[in-house]
Structures are given as structure tokens and as C-alpha cells.
């Protein structure tokens, strides 16, 4: 029973001296970040890379902002040299220490070619964590950015938006009179955000009523449920949508799934919607995976030292029905992890488009003064060793259209009767509404009903009509006897019965 490791102790003695991370002085924070990144970042950055990056970052800004030309040596490659330059520049460029720290840190991080390693101020950190927990300050609606349009895809209950006249499907045109035309999602988000209690006037277009309207809203703190779901109208197939992997996600998912299986004890299938779910906590993803497998490999992770670790799901429960996971290009990180694990364990198939491709895991390290560093430590792989990072997961069933993804998922688990209609701009598939940018139905000049081609294609399984946006539905009604269109009250309802089943 001999003690077997001694090298470890030698290692401590060696590193014990150099890695006292809690340094003193005006540039302590730069030093902290430098050590953390140097010792831990997945990419194994070199000392020189970090030092040069920090110096370069400050030099650039000084040139741009104050027309100052700062000089440093291309040979500078130690923390001591970096700190010496910083002190020098502090006097010369009249930059205060905290600005220098910020610039140096951003400069170092920019050399990593890793958008997920980032410096957080205390406020940034709170905002980030609130985002993961689905807590936000805002008006209480969720948006979807598609084809250049900002679409309200969900109104959060008990929020200012719910109390106002806003409706799902409204298109956001302007904020306080400033047009959103040509803005991307991030820019629009910046225009919408603001302090709790402040107000803004939103201009929206409502396609269903074909009119523009203005709504005045006050921003409030809102916690959004992470999970939504229910049964499709046949009562045999469940639907659970997950917005984020916050700390409540697993419990909410568990409760929702129990509620669904209680309503429908002989569930024939489940759709899990991970579209536009940007991820969150790994532990939540693992707990949710445990609702699908009693035991199974969740993932492999590797780090900079070539250490590969398996993470297992244990003491979960098996499902006895097929599962389809809806994915799109907004399905990222923990979502990809869960989707990949359930697919590789033979539990689920993926329907939709290729996923985002964020196959790395970060940890948040507190720095002094309440700041924090989010740092990439691991890359993960699916149980079959599929690479996710920068690659994304290919779906088993490919479909680009948001509503058609649902239809194809239902088809693939043997659903044989479909009912589609439009409601407030949403496309309602077998009783569950999904946000749509393009309406399901349109009338042409002659008053004939057109239907969105991709959706019709997914319903009848005719792949030849995917190229058009909208098609006249009449010929298909003749070709497919079980395809019917009811047009009472000017709200068409499409039904389809899969023949031969």
C-alpha cells in the first residue's frame, strides 16, 4: 500500500512559487488574467503571444483615440516586461490603470481566436448569468430574426408586453421612432435594452390585420419559464420546448414531462424543441439527459493537456417512445451536447438544420473587484466522438422551414394525420402554435389560396415543390385525395391523412 505519486508534490513545489495569482499592484487584474489564461486555456497560448497581444491592444487604441504612438519591443514576452510597459504608459499616455487593465486583458484575449473566452465586469457577469437563467429586464417578449424582419415570437406571461396590445407574430419596425430596418439582431437588441422602469414606444406591423400600431411599454425585471410544452391535438405526441439550460431547466423539464405523461400515459412520441437555445449549464443538460436514459455516456471532454474525461448519466430513466429533437443554427453549446448525446445513444433523431457548432465549455473565474473571466477550458465530443466545435451537428432529417421542421418531425415518428392553420401569424401544427415569419397561407390576385411550399412539401412528402415560396394548393388537393382545405370564415384549415397507414 505504498504511496504512489511523488511527482505531483514536486510539481507543487515548482509551481507553488510562480503561480501566486493574487498579485498586488495596479496591474494585478492583468496579471491574474494572464496567469489563468496561460495555465488553463484550451489553446495553450504562449507567454509571448499574451504579452504581445496586450501591448498591441493598448497601442492600437492609443493611436486611434489619442493619436499617441506607443512603442514596445517585439521581444517583450514576460509578465514583468508587460507590467513595466504598462507602468511606463500609464504616465506617458495618461491612461488610468483600470483602462490599461481592460485594454491589456482584451488584447490578450483577442490573441486566443476564441469568442467564448471573455472578460466580464460585475455588471456584464450579472447580465450573462441572468441570460442563462432566463431572467431579463425588458418588455417581456422574445424575438426571432428572420429574413431581415424582427418578429415577436413569444409574449411572456405576466410581463409588460402581455399587458399591452402586442401579439405573437407582430413585426417590430421601430423603437422610439428609430427604424430597425437593416439592423441585425444584436443591434436591435441594443436598441431595445434599457434600465428597469424606463419606457419606450414600439412600432409594430401586424400582418394578420395588415396594419401598423404603436405601443408604449415600461421595462421590468422578468423571469421567463425555461420550459414550455403540451400535447399535440391527437393526445399521443408530446412537445417540450426548452429556452435555455438555466439552473431550473431540469426540474421544469422533469415536471413538464411528468405532466405530459400523466395526461397521456401511452405517449407515442416526444418532440424536444432546442431551436434557438444557446445553451447554459452543463449540469442541467446532464439532468435533462437523465430523463431519457437510465444510464449512458453524455460526452467526452478534452483539455489542453490531452486529458480525456467521460461524463456519464446515471440513475436516470429510460423512455419507451421515439424522440425527435428540433434543431437549427441557433442550437448551440449545451443544446448541441444534449442533442448529440441523445442521438448517439439511439434515443433521438435530429430534425432541422445544422446546429451552431459551439463545442467548447467555459468556466467563470472570479477576479478581484467583482470582475470575472469566462475562460474556455474544454472541448467536448459526442459519445460517438463526433466533433461539434466549429462544425455543428448535421440533422438526420433536413428542413429549413420553422413550421415544416415540426411537420417532418411528426411524420418521422409515425404521425399520420395533420391539421395546419394560421393564427395571429403563427403556424399551428396539430394544435400547437409555432412562430412563422412567412404566413402559412396567402391569397393571390384571383383570390386563390396559396400555401407556403416548404410546409406543404413536408406535409405530403412531395419534395419537388421546395423551390418555390408559395404554390397554388388546388392541384395538390386533386392529386392527394386525403389532403383537404376547409376555408370557412376565411381562415383556411389544411388537413391531411397519410394514406396506407
Amino acid at each position, binding site marked *: *500500500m505504498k504511496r504512489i505519486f511523488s*511527482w*505531483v*508534490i514536486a510539481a507543487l513545489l515548482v509551481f507553488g512559487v510562480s503561480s501566486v495569482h493574487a498579485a498586488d499592484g495596479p496591474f494585478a487584474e492583468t496579471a491574474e488574467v494572464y496567469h489563468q489564461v496561460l*495555465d488553463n486555456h484550451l489553446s495553450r497560448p504562449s507567454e509571448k503571444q499574451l504579452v504581445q497581444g496586450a501591448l498591441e491592444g493598448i497601442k492600437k487604441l492609443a493611436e486611434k483615440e489619442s493619436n499617441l504612438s506607443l512603442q514596445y519591443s517585439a521581444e517583450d514576452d514576460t509578465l514583468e516586461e508587460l507590467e513595466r510597459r504598462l507602468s511606463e504608459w500609464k504616465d506617458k499616455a495618461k491612461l488610468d490603470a483600470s483602462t490599461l487593465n481592460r485594454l491589456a486583458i482584451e488584447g490578450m484575449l483577442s490573441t486566443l481566436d476564441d469568442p467564448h473566452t471573455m472578460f466580464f465586469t460585475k455588471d456584464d457577469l450579472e447580465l450573462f448569468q441572468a441570460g442563462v437563467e432566463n431572467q431579463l429586464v425588458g418588455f417581456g417578449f422574445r424575438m426571432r430574426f428572420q429574413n431581415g424582419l424582427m418578429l415577436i415570437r413569444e409574449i411572456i406571461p405576466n410581463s409588460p408586453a402581455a399587458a399591452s396590445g402586442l401579439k405573437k407574430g407582430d413585426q417590430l419596425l421601430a423603437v422610439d421612432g428609430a427604424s430597425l430596418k437593416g439592423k441585425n439582431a444584436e443591434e436591435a437588441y441594443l436598441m431595445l435594452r434599457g434600465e428597469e422602469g424606463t419606457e419606450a414606444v414600439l412600432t409594430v406591423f401586424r400582418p394578420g390585420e395588415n396594419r401598423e400600431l404603436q405601443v408604449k411599454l415600461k421595462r421590468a425585471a422578468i423571469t421567463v419559464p425555461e420550459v414550455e410544452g403540451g400535447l399535440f391535438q391527437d393526445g399521443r405526441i408530446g412537445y417540450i420546448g426548452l429556452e435555455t439550460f438555466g439552473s431550473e431547466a*431540469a426540474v421544469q423539464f422533469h415536471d413538464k414531462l411528468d405532466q405530459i405523461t400523466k395526461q397521456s400515459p401511452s405517449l407515442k412520441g416526444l418532440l424536444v424543441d432546442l431551436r434557438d437555445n444557446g445553451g447554459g449549464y452543463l449540469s442541467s443538460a446532464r439532468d435533462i439527459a*437523465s430523463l431519457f436514459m437510465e444510464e449512458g455516456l453524455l460526452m467526452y471532454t478534452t*483539455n489542453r493537456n490531452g486529458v480525456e474525461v467521460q461524463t456519464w448519466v*446515471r440513475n436516470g430513466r429510460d423512455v419507451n417512445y421515439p424522440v425527435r429533437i428540433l434543431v437549427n443554427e441557433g442550437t448551440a453549446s449545451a443544446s448541441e451536447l444534449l442533442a448529440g448525446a441523445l442521438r448517439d445513444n439511439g434515443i433521438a433523431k435530429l430534425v432541422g438544420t445544422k446546429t451552431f457548432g459551439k463545442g467548447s465549455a467555459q468556466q467563470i473565474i472570479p477576479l478581484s473587484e467583482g470582475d470575472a473571466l469566462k475562460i474556455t477550458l474544454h472541448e467536448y465530443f459526442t459519445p460517438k466522438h463526433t466533433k461539434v466545435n466549429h462544425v455543428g451537428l448535421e440533422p438526420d432529417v433536413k428542413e429549413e422551414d420553422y413550421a415544416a421542421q415540426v411537420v417532418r418531425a411528426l411524420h418521422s415518428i409515425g404521425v399520420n394525420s395533420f391539421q395546419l392553420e394560421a393564427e395571429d401569424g403563427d403556424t399551428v401544427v396539430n394544435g400547437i402554435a409555432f412562430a412563422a415569419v412567412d404566413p402559412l397561407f396567402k391569397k393571390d390576385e384571383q383570390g386563390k389560396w396559396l400555401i407556403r411550399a416548404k410546409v406543404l412539401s413536408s406535409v405530403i412528402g412531395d419534395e419537388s415543390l421546395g423551390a418555390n415560396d408559395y404554390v397554388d394548393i388546388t392541384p395538390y388537393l386533386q392529386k392527394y385525395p386525403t389532403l383537404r382545405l376547409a376555408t370557412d370564415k376565411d381562415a383556411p384549415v389544411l388537413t391531411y391523412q397519410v394514406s396506407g397507414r
Partner: protein
Amino acid sequence: MQKKSKVLTCALLVCSLLVPSAASAASSYMPYSDISKHWAKSSIIRGAQYGLFASGGSIERFYPNRELTRAEFVALMDRVFVVGQQHLYPLTFLSEHDEFGKGEGFDEPYLPYKDVDRLTWMYGPTLRMSVLLERLYGPGAIQEIFPGQLFSPNQPITREEAAKLLAIYTMETDQQKAWNMVNEWGWLTGRPSDKLKRGEAAVVFDRLVQFLQRDVMLPLLDYDGQKFPMVPEVQDMFPLFAPYTDQVTGDDQIYVNAAEAIRFHEDSEETFRALRKLAEGTFDNKVGVHYYLSWDPDTEIADNLEHAFKAIDAYFDDRIVLPDTLQLLVANVYDMALQTGSTDPKMYEKILERLNGYEQKIRKNTKESEALAIYQAALEVKVGHMDKALEIYRAFAPHHQEALKNLVYYLVQNEQLSEAEAFLAGLQPKKTEVEIIQLTRLLQQELAIDLEQASIVRDLSFTMGRMENLKGYKAEGEAVLRGFLVKYTEEVDRLSKARHATGIYQSPQKLVLDKWESYTDTEKNIKYERNFDSESWEPSRVDQQEFMSDYVAGMSVKDRARILGARYYKQSFGEYDIITEWIPGDKIVEAAQNVSLNHGKIKSVPVYMNKYYIDSDSDLLVKHVWRYEEVYNTQEYVAYAGEETYKTQVDVRVSIPREVVKGAAR
């Protein structure tokens, strides 16, 4: 900061864990609407007060006549563990700091059942019980009680199953006898196959909690060498020594304020100045004034001691018999004796002599005389007069718990085991003396364990010998050494005299894992360790002893028992024999005076414990768990804990690659 040590306070923590909160302890407290006429009412109410049973809020009923489920019983066991853990600590080594049940290493533990879902209320308690049982009894222990792949958590628990779980607190060495043992302690009776109703379970846990609050399970076990001589717990260290009303004035007020300040650690120089003034004047509470003056952190300990004695003098001047007061005053003197005596052993003698002087002022065979005698005896032990100490203890041991424990402990130390047994056998406690009855049983059990020592040493030596004679084996382990968490696999090939280990470790200063690999040439005593940064192999000698634990690990079991005074405890459970080994730290320090360690001179060893799980068919080691804590003269504290499991049925071949040796030579 107080100069006085806090020896007195330690014992207090033990009892306060499960004291019902004052709000719910009112006599009219009725937590449920369906128990007012139930026979187990008082146990149910106590259980609710302890927090064993959920009450309040939307919970209205207790359903005392419903059958209790397995999961519910396990959850109750889990809650009782809050009080039970310190009883079981010598057997589990699971400290309060460990996030119990979460796993101490890389891999989270999990249940061997398919029907306990991790997102349910029962998962945490069931997992923690499983971890506890596994630590006590070896791999897969919970399945010895609930066999198979299903736990069936909602199935009613039988009395026998319940008894098997309760048996962890009986110290019964043979799990087969769990039912009898639990019966004998009176916790649970009836037919083994009968179900247990919720009301009955309330009584079971009421009895268990009372049992656990009375005494620890191995009253004689002194694994850190700090327990004996044992003195009573002090209940209140800061009394006022006289009644005072809420509205006090004058000197009374000055005194009460000073005492309160000391009690709440808010005392200053001013506090003691005020007390000194009172001592010089005519203030009548001399006992209190001198007692609190003895707490002055700015005066020499000799002065403090004088005040401590003056307080006793004042007590006798008052001529009122208050045994509890006298006990506190003598405890105060004893506390200082321990502080001064550790550097100047002559102080023990001096203080003892002065204490002996008070004997004539007290009537013999009274509570008052015992209050003094328990400390006189402790000091007799300190000065080495064992016979005198035994004589004092013997006089009042039949009805005094600490005296009884000390008597039996020192009789055993004195190798008078049969006298200890005879003494216990001859005791005739009254029925109402439940503490003495329980303690006597526990002591008898422990003496029986003492008788087994030689045979346990033989058994363990035999197993170690079997392991040494294997051609090879494979060990998988997880350990923490000085904050480094390591997970490894080691292959040991005795034929080629080589070992190969691979693993990963987590440095406390890093966020990511590192690799680790080594080869050991056990013939030349050279270890080659991989430096993954420089991609080289680094040789080192392995015959030098780095830590104290290396020295102890190098000793045979027999030597550990003979030289280091190791104590052993053996249990059998399922397929395993479990041997727990405790080595008193003071003995290790004594024996190691002349041992040279790379790490320096050893100062103290607070904990040194091993646990061996032995397959009772093959006598081979299945698993080894350890926890060592060492303090060096440099004040460095080294903790080393871990566990290893052994695969002995494997064909292990290790040869040290040539490039390893060659690379290291460069």
C-alpha cells in the same frame, strides 16, 4: 482573543445538534391533526420537533397507521445521520466538511438501482445512505440489504430491512445478527417480516435519537490521543454564580456587564480593570469576580491560575453546597493545568496538590466530592500515578459516566482487562439509570473487541501476506494529497519487479486536469516519472521516506499493533470482512523521534486511520481506504486521504520500456 484554551467548549457541540427549537417545544405543540389519540403521539411530536418529520405548511396529517415505505425509512435514516455522523466518524472517516454523498473525488457516486430517479426527492437520501453503507461495509453494500436492480422505493419496508439499516449504530460485528442486536437495544421488535407503520417508525427513531444523544458508540476509542483522561462536559461556562434581577445597579451592574462581555467575547482591558476593582472592594460575589479575572488574556497564566483558585476558596467560604458550580471552578483550574503542564509537567503535580487540599472541606461520597475527584484523578493520570487514579475512579464509577469510562479505559491500558470486565459485570444500575445501563453495554462490547485484537492482527497480516505473494495485481485509486486530487490505475508485477501507474490529477492551482504516469523499478528502488511538459522521464529514489505515512506504511501490521499501539475493529458484512485500524497520533510521534523524513520532523498526527475490505473467501484485499493528517515542526500540515480498489484476478505484466530508463539517464 482569549488566552484560555477552548478545551471546555468542544464537548458542548455534541449535544446541541438536535435540541428542538424553542418555538415548537411548547407543550401544546400538535403538528398533525390525526395523532392526538395515537399511542405513539409523543414520539411523533418529538420527531416533528427534531425536524425528522416534515410539518407545518400544507402538511396536516401524519397518517400514523399507514405503512412506511423504503424510501421514507431511508430518508429518516439520512436525517438522523446529522447526529449520527460523529458517532460513525471513526468508522467512516467522512468528515463534516466533505460534501457527503457528492463524492470526494472525480466520479460522482451513483445508486446500483434502476428505479430511483436522480431528479426525485428520494434520490439524495438514498444515495447518501448507499455511500455511507459502502464506506462502512464495502462495495455494493446497500444491495446486501435491498438486493437486485430495483430498490422499489415505494414498497413498505419490513422490520428486518429496517433493522439492517439501524444496525449501523449497534457496533455489531456480524451483520447476520443485526436483527437480534437491534432487538436487544430495544429499538425495534416484532416479527421480522412484518411491515413497519409510520407511528411505529416514529418510536424507533425517537429511541435511536435518544441513544445517540447519550453516548458515542466506541466510548473507549481515542483515535487522536486527546480524549483521555476524560472530564465531564461543561454545560454553561459563563454563569453569574449568583441570582441577579434584570434591573441591577451599582457593583452588581459592573459585575454583570463584565461577565456578559467575557461571555460574548467583547471583553477589553476595561472589563478586567473593573473586575479587579470589585475584587479589592467589598463586593460579595467573590466566586464570580475571581472566576472571571482568571479569564484575563493580558495577565500571566500563573496569575489567572491564582484567581481560579481564589474562586474555589471563595466557594468554600460561602459554605453552600453547589456541586455544578464547584465542578466548573475545578474544570477552570484543570483547563489551565493542561495549558501549563504541557510545557512544564511539574505544574500538574503542584496543581494537584492544591486541589487535594480541598478534600477535607467536602463530605465524602457526595456529588460535591465527585465534582472534585474527577479532576483529581485526571491529574493523577497526568503525573503518572495510575494506581491512585484508578482508585479514585473506582470509588464512584458505578453511577458516574466519565469515571466509569476512565476506569475501564485505564484498566485496559494497564493490561487489567479481566478486572475491567469483572467490574462491569458486577455493576447493578437501577432501571432509571439509563445512561449507565447503555454505557455499560457499550463498554462491554468494546472490551469484547479488545479481546479480539490479536486475532484481528493475525487476520490482517495474513491478508497483507497474501497480497505480497500475488504475482501481480491492479489497483485503481483516488486520493487527495496536499490538495492535489489524483485518480490513477497502477499495475504491479512482482515477477518483473516493476510497477506502472497512469492517471490524471487536479492541481489546486489549476482549472484543468493534468496527466500523470510513472514506472517503478522495485528492485533498484527507482521511480521514473513522466514530465509531460518537457516530455522526459525523471528518476527518483523510492526508498527514502517523504512523509510520516510512508514510515508507518512500511511497518508490518504486527509492529503497528505492538509499537504504535494500533487498535483494530473487525466486522463482517455480506462477502466482506471489514477491518478498521486506528493508530494513536501520540504513539506515532513517539516512535518516530529518530526517523528521518524528507519532509522534516513530525510534530503531531491528528488522524491516522485505515480501513481494509477483505474478501472473506479468498482473504484478499478488495479495497483500502485511508485518512492521515500530519503536522510537521515547520508547522506544515499534510493531509492524505484516499481509496484504492484491487483487481487480483488479472494477469499483470509490466516491463519498464528502455526509453524510459534511457531518457531518465540523460
